[in-house]
């Protein structure tokens, strides 16, 4: 089979795209490969459960808090404790800070150069510095919004990246009144920036209609946590699957029993595994996670400004789910606004300053599952330990992994639409990457994961002969 190779940049990780042409010269298949692995599932074996939160945080520097919290939750289950409610609130606060910083990074630093400078802009300018030259205020806004999220993490955990703060049983430090006030003082500016970005997106949306139509618009399932009352959730609750019509396919699923409904396939051409919804089989059980899925799955957000925006978002698809992956960007901006509102609520809760933040216990269960919503989607940590708390087995399903099938489908769709003949144009190159970037894949997290995606596209003919190859910058 003929194919095209494309390394991808401005996503968090290492990857490559190959496109295969059929006899008729049409795109037959396109693959997104993840090209790195570090082996966490193996080298965690033999370490103690107490080390796991800080160790697994090193899976990913973009969303270390996700792994930190998810791991701490799996360890709470091993201790069989219910953590103090103030500790849960503090963990939620840190996770919301992380959603803000991670989404801001995705939108302002990584994607807005495409959206605002255009798909055909000079590759030299398509980055955050190019954005600063084009619109200094917008770039500064992005930097400040991301910094706000990072500061919440730093104030709570003492460090912006890899704080060792969440521990089995709770957190190791409460929040002081002074620190709370410091966060609260910066909130209005963050909210102003987030709302401006959301309005900007809504105003400009019309000009991205072609991309919205072809950057991964197809029916699929969506999965996320939802709260017991059906509203948006990021820390607790249960798993829900909806289909492209926003009909609930499964609800109230116990996250601890994920293996009953999630299967994982492996392909030799990617270090990233391919999870699927078991009852539908592989690959028909393709589902998406992350901001788009969370907004499609929940009944309502649960805060004022985000619910108003959610109404406008839903109007894109009537009663149905928004199936255009391009609108991950839209969903991300709505989630930033909602996360900021929820931060406000938490800060004004009297319990947030409580000193009771940790439950002490030893090993009481030999198996524990932690689940939670990372910025990019549902994350699972599953540990088995011996009586002394030494890890015997680990399984991790990272957010980016869930989207693997959908990302592959997306690159195929973009290649089908923009590949003209056998030439790899700059516009095609950029859109292929842009399609992947919409998912904000964290290839670092993809444990079974990848590095920089220098966009290398290789086009192969029906007999496997190399038709064209193009590397950006060459």
């Amino acid at each position, binding site marked *: 089979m003929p194919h095209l190779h494309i*390394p991808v*940049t*401005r*996503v*968090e*990780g*290492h990857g*490559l795209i*190959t496109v295969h042409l059929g006899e008729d010269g049409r795109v037959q298949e396109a693959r997104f*490969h993840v*090209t*790195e*692995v*570090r*082996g966490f*599932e*193996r*080298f965690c074996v033999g370490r103690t459960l107490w080390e796991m939160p800080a*160790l697994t945080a*090193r899976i*990913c*520097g*973009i969303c*270390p808090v996700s792994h930190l919290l998810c791991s701490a939750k799996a360890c709470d289950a091993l201790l069989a404790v219910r953590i103090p409610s103030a500790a849960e609130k503090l963990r939620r606060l840190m996770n919301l800070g992380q959603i803000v910083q991670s989404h801001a990074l995705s939108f302002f*630093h*990584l994607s807005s150069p495409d959206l605002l400078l255009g798909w055909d802009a000079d*590759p030299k300018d*398509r*980055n*955050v*510095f190019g954005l*600063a030259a084009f619109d*200094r205020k917008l*770039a*500064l806004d992005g*930097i*400040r919004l991301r*910094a706000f999220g*990072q500061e919440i993490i730093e104030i709570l955990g003492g460090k*912006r*990246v*890899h704080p060792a703060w969440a521990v089995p049983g709770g957190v190791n430090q409460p929040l002081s009144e002074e620190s709370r006030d410091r966060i609260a003082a910066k909130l209005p500016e963050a909210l102003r920036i987030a709302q401006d970005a959301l309005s900007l997106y809504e105003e400009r949306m019309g000009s991205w209609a072609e991309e919205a139509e072809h950057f991964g618009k197809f029916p699929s399932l969506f999965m996320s946590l939802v709260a017991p009352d059906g509203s948006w959730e990021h820390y607790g609750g249960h798993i829900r699957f909806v289909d492209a019509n926003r009909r609930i396919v499964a609800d109230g699923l116990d996250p601890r029993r994920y293996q009953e409904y999630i299967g*994982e396939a*492996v392909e*030799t*051409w*990617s*270090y990233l595994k391919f999870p699927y919804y078991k009852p539908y089989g592989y690959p028909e059980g393709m589902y998406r996670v992350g901001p788009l899925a969370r907004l499609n799955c929940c009944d309502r957000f649960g805060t004022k400004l985000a619910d108003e925006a959610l109404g406008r978002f839903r109007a894109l698809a009537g009663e149905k789910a928004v199936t255009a992956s391009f609108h991950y960007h839209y969903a991300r901006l709505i989630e930033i606004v909602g996360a900021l509102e929820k931060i406000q609520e938490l800060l004004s809760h009297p319990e947030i300053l409580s000193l009771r933040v940790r439950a002490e216990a030893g090993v009481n269960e030999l198996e524990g599952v932690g689940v939670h919503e990372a910025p990019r989607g549902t994350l699972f940590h599953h540990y088995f330990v011996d009586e002394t708390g030494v890890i015997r087995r680990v399984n991790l399903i990272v957010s980016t992994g869930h989207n693997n099938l959908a990302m592959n489908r997306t690159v195929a769709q973009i290649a089908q639409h923009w590949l003209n003949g056998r030439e790899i144009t700059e516009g095609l190159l950029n859109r292929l990457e842009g399609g992947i970037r919409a998912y904000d894949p964290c290839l*670092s997290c993809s*444990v*079974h994961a990848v*590095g*920089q*995606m*220098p*966009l290398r596209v290789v086009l192969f003919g029906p007999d496997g002969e190399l038709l064209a190859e193009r*590397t*950006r*910058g*060459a």
Partner: protein
Amino acid sequence: MRKLRVATVWFSGCSGCHMSFLDLDERLLEFAERAELVFSPIVDVKEFPEDVDVVLIEGAVGNTAHLRELLEIRTKAKILVAFGDCAVTGNVPSLRNPLPREEVLATVYGTVDPPGLEEGEVPKFLPQALPLHAVVPVDYFLPGCPPSAERIWKFLRPVLLGQRPELSGADIKLG
């Protein structure tokens, strides 16, 4: 004044060191006044350019692609910096080093035919994850997991001004 040509590279690391670089926040714009980021996961150049003044490399050398790239980068960059503990010591990715590679891959993928055993569409997994200086000479070590933005700035600022960076005391501590 000619702008300094700076590159950042990501090998087997978690990208936390790169995030810490972005934590320079507003200082990023000051950086951009004196330097040009000519290659990095956050910009769109796909091929490591010639004549790079300073390259910060995050992560250990974990697979054959990293190995090839590192050798090439060494010939193209004047100052090569081991950026963060993974690059300095092997740190987290080297935790697998005592274990046979086949076993690591088989555990991760739960199959007898995992990716990474052969050079193919994904690069081959090296038997051990190596710190940079096990492969090429390194000019500066910038430790930390990750180095904080303050530490990065203490290092970069003099470099941007054409001076020799001097890190000492708490700033050369691992972790």
